[in-house]
């Protein structure tokens, strides 16, 4: 069993207007086998948390800690974090021209495992995983994300999740831009990997829609860089009915007070 622990995390970014705090003290503990949903309005810092865990250079950690089974994640480079078992399914996967999916997947797998995968099994695994996510076979020969539609890019993110078997998956608005069919396919992929029992999942989303397919154990509501409320799956149901207004009102009131 593994534990990803985030303690009192303060994160800022540099903007033209100067340094801007985004996360203002976030604490969260995720264990293997758990699904945590982080919900919240736009600009509340959800994606910042995801990118900070993965080590995106744009974000500066001012205080607090992130540890994976006690190891300090913040001192690791981006690739070391991935090799330690963290996986970020990106909100906007970038196109990498000139690098085929096949080459990319094999290079990544080799880096993650420390040895090249057995060619015969690997090819079979990739094919099977692509089939389950209904990704056309010809994608293997195409360049990474190049010319893929929004939905195709998200499926390819989940393909990697299923091939790389991370200890913790952070899904950054994987549901955004997906139609219902694609949402189901992608959710099934996450559930398949999760059901193996070796992964903890942090699901970041703006909408409750994906939570109909991926059932969270814990729901955390982000408002203005902090966790404003947390609970079980029932909190998501309540949000679906009431939206985020309740939290926004409180915040406005607090500002006025």
């Amino acid at each position, binding site marked *: 069993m593994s534990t990803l622990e985030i303690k009192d995390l303060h994160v800022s970014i540099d903007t033209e207007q100067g340094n801007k705090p985004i996360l203002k003290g976030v604490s969260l503990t995720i264990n293997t086998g758990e699904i945590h949903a982080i919900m919240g309005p736009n600009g509340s810092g959800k994606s910042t948390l995801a990118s900070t865990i*993965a080590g995106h250079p744009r974000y500066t950690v001012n205080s607090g800690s992130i540890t994976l089974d006690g190891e300090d994640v913040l001192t690791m480079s981006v690739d070391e974090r*991935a090799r330690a078992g963290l996986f970020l399914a*990106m909100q906007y996967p970038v196109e990498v*021209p000139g690098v085929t999916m096949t080459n990319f997947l094999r290079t990544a797998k080799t880096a993650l495992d420390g040895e090249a995968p057995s060619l015969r099994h690997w090819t079979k695994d990739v094919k099977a995983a692509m089939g389950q996510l209904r990704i056309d076979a010809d994608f293997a020969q195409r360049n990474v994300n190049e010319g893929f539609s929004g939905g195709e890019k998200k499926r390819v993110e989940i393909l990697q999740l299923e091939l790389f078997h991370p200890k913790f998956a952070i899904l950054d608005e994987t549901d955004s831009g997906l139609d219902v069919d694609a949402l189901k396919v992608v959710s099934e992929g996450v559930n398949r990997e999760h059901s193996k029992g070796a992964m903890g999942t942090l699901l970041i989303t703006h909408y409750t829609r994906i939570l109909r397919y991926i059932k969270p154990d814990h729901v955390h509501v982000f408002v203005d860089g902090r966790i404003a409320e947390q609970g079980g799956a029932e909190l998501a149901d309540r949000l679906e009915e009431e939206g985020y207004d309740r939290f926004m009102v409180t915040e406005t009131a607090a500002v006025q007070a």
Partner: protein
Amino acid sequence: MAETTNVDEMTLNPTAIEGFSEEGESLSELNAGTEQLGLKKHSHGNAPVIPEASRGERLKSYDLADFAPLTGQEEDWRFTPLKRLRGLHTDPLTGTAPTVTVTGASNVRTETVERTDSRIGSAAIPEDRVAAAAWAAVATATVLTIPAETIADSEVLVDVSGSDSAASAQHLVIHAGRFSKAVVVLDHHGKATLAQNVEINVEDGAELTVVSVQQWDDDAVHVSSQQARIGRNARYKHVVVTLGGDLVRLTPSSVFTGPGAEVEMYGLYFADAGQHLEQRLLVDHAVPNCKSRVTYKGALQGKDAHTVWVGDVLIRKAAEGTDTYETNRNLLLTDGARSDSVPNLEIETGLIEGAGHASATGRFDDEHLFYLMARGIPERTARRLVVRGFLNEVIQQIGVPSLEERLSEAVEQELAAGNL
């Protein structure tokens, strides 16, 4: 690749010149050079440039005297550091030219001919002073002939090996007879200060690939005009790969002389600190229903690495049904490198299938790097993966496996040398 900066004529000339359009150099007379020769040190990009109304009107002549001495202000020399030409544009070209050795195909004829041979001048007319000087200087030429209706039984390997740094001249003729088929590789290496004319005659229905590899020693200077005449229904592929040399300037051109022909022109260049690698292309659509595709890709690393790509495509009035597209992409791997990219399209008829061009010059993209590293790939491997992928598109066009392998290896070495 990061398309953060799109370098075109306009951005290269921060001091905007009136009459300059994105379509080319329709310079107003206000900008005719008024400096006295030699008084102003020419600076690239904003020197006054001698205008040229149409690419089709550029002076062509076998007579050196027809070309004025170069000042660096000429449109087609404005990016070239003349003082690094080591006299190719001023001195008699009396040095020993690189040795030409032809191996490979047994059914392709190789001859050394006197300059009075009628095949000299069958496909090309010099378009600049250095080409004309080389034309005037050579006593003999090497002529390769792929006889009509002959399929070369293997690649034709033309080894061009230099050992003298004095300014020299060389002339090669490649004659692909009707319905012949061949791949010819010009493999340039060693020491040289060389002005070279390569004439390529692709007769009706012939299928010819010419690959020109420049892997010179670090101090070599090579100026090469590689003009091709393309006959009816012929297929011509031209690939340049330039890795080594202090200054390499190539001017490949394809002139269609009969309808139904197709041309593909590819280029790969990798400039390190201090290298000047320049390529100026012309595709002349003079007849109807021909197709051309141009793809050049460059990588640059190190201080004062400089690459130039100018792609001129001319669609003349008669060239109805033309289909053309050209693209140039450059990847700046470090600070201090400079890439100039200028696509020009002149169209004299609207009755065409299509005509377009694209140019993009960008830095190594941090988001690419983040994406690959977030999948566990170490930074160094990630960078190489991207650059290799970027350049491979051109290498895989060569179609000679052993050469493709050698050049891939050479690109790897460039990357290793640049600490990438």
